[in-house]
Structure formats: structure tokens, C-alpha cells
């Protein structure tokens, strides 16, 4: 593709040339459902990698309590819409990509919005179930991730894998304690799943729930 080699973009992606399918990444549209801790770090990873279009979906405004872990926001952004601030930040990270900011809950995403993958940056299960359905109903995968405290988990869900309802049993408690490092680590792995999928590389976390606890530095992979 000619556009790959125009201007600065050839050099920009030179150090990942052998690792990804850059042409596919540049053409790809990735929806990030929720741009808080997880979604913010996912978005930065995908912007750096050169994913051509990022679609940010989040109705929230920046709050002071976000600032311990949400990389995209500063004190001067408190009270502003997250997706708008995030769009500006990401365009600064990589001005060659398109960033679409959608200021609504994922439940209200318009049918006209087109995407190739949905990455989970949400903070509750009802919205995750909806985002998963949104992805699978369009025939695209959903990269689940969740964090709490020093712990994180993720898996790659598509039309042939187990879904959230198959491994989320009963009530899921919410604990608001979370660290930037946990969000960054989990989100980086989620972003890598999206990059691998779009590039046609590697072994995806299909039917495998990866769980870690950074406090004890224990990892477990649960076959679903």
C-alpha cells in the first residue's frame, strides 16, 4: 500500500516491521469500550502501534479519583468529557491515526459504527455483556479484561469460544481499589491480543482465562 511509505510513517513503524502486519493495522478500526484505566492504556498501545482508527466509547467525565491510574488525563481535565480529552492525547501520541470519540454508554452505540475488534475497558458486567454482544453480533471478537487491586484477568472471545456467561457465575463483587500498574499490564496484554488478531500472528487467548496476582507474582491460566 502506497500510503504506508509516505512521509514519516515508514520510519515510524520500522522497529515493529517484522512483528506485525502494519498494512492491516493501519486499515483496522478498533473500538475501545470505556477509556478509564484499562481502556486508556489499551488506546495508547494501539495508537503507538499504528492502528488506523480508534473508536473511543465512554459517557463519563474526568474525576480527580481517576488520576492515580488513568494516563490520558490531568488535573486540568477534571470535569471534561473523557473521550474528548482522550482523543486529543492520542492524536498527540500518533497524529497519523483517526480517533473517533463517542460520548455515550456502549449500550447506545449506533448501528452505523463499523469496527474490526472491540477491546474491553469497562468497569461493570452488564456493560461488558452488552459490549460482548455488540462485537459478536457483528462477527468480530471481544477482548475481555478486568482489574482489581493487584489482580487482573483477560481472555479473547469470538463466535467459537466460551463467552462471559460461561465463566462469570453468580454475583461479581465490585471493589474500587486499583493501581495504574495493574491496569497498564492487563491493558497491554489486551492490546497485544488485538494486534495479534489483526496481524494474523501468534496464539490468541481463546478459551484461556489468564489470571495474575502481582502482589504474590502468581499467574494461572484457566482453560475454559
Amino acid at each position: 500500500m502506497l500510503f504506508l511509505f509516505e512521509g514519516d510513517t515508514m520510519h515510524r513503524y520500522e522497529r515493529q516491521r517484522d512483528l506485525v502486519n502494519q498494512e492491516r493495522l493501519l486499515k483496522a478500526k478498533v473500538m475501545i469500550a470505556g477509556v478509564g484505566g484499562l481502556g486508556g492504556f489499551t488506546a495508547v498501545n494501539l495508537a503507538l502501534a499504528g492502528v488506523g482508527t480508534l473508536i473511543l466509547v465512554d459517557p463519563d467525565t474526568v474525576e480527580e479519583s481517576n488520576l492515580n491510574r488513568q494516563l490520558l488525563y490531568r488535573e486540568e481535565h477534571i470535569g471534561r468529557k473523557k473521550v474528548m480529552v482522550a482523543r486529543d492525547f492520542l492524536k498527540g501520541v500518533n497524529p497519523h491515526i483517526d480517533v473517533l470519540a463517542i460520548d455515550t454508554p456502549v449500550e447506545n452505540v449506533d448501528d452505523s459504527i463499523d469496527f474490526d475488534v472491540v477491546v474491553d475497558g469497562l468497569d461493570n458486567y452488564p456493560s461488558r455483556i452488552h459490549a460482548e454482544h455488540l462485537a459478536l453480533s457483528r462477527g468480530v471478537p471481544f477482548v475481555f479484561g478486568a482489574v482489581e487491586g493487584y489482580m487482573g484477568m483477560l481472555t479473547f472471545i469470538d463466535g467459537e469460544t466460551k463467552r462471559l456467561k460461561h465463566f462469570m457465575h453468580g454475583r461479581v463483587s465490585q471493589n474500587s481499589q486499583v493501581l495504574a500498574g495493574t491496569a497498564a499490564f492487563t491493558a497491554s496484554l489486551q492490546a497485544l491480543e488485538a494486534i495479534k488478531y489483526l496481524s494474523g500472528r501468534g496464539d490468541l487467548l481463546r478459551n484461556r482465562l489468564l489470571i495474575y496476582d502481582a502482589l504474590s507474582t502468581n499467574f494461572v491460566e484457566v482453560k475454559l
Partner: protein
Amino acid sequence: MKVRIRYFGRFAMEIGKFSEEIEIRDGATVRELIKMLRERYPALKNEEIEVSIDGKYAPEDMPLTYEVSVYPMISGG
């Protein structure tokens, strides 16, 4: 039988340990383990407890083996 349990996330923080070896009757199932943990640790009494055995999700009727992981489902983002 002896069972070595690894605790993840808030479960480890709530009970103050990352792992332990316990004694339970031979042939005990995941259901019995969960019941025992809820009785032993009040902090887990009202928790949904998930278990994996040998790297696989373990339903409640699955017999225990020596190595077991116990974790909460989490929802933060």
C-alpha cells in the same frame, strides 16, 4: 488428603495468605472445599469463589487434586 491452595486477588488479601496446605477428606469435591473455606474464613462467607484445578475451570462437583487455585471474578476497569 492434602490440598495446596493458591489464593488470588482480594481473597489473598482478606485472609492474609497467598497459599496454604490443608487437610480434607479423600475424594472431596470443589463444593466441599468452598464450604470449608467459607466456614474457616469469615471474609469469604459471602464471596463467589471460583476454583481451577490442573489449569482448568473446576465445577463444584469436580474432585480435588493436590494443587488448586482459588480466585474471585473481578469487574474493575
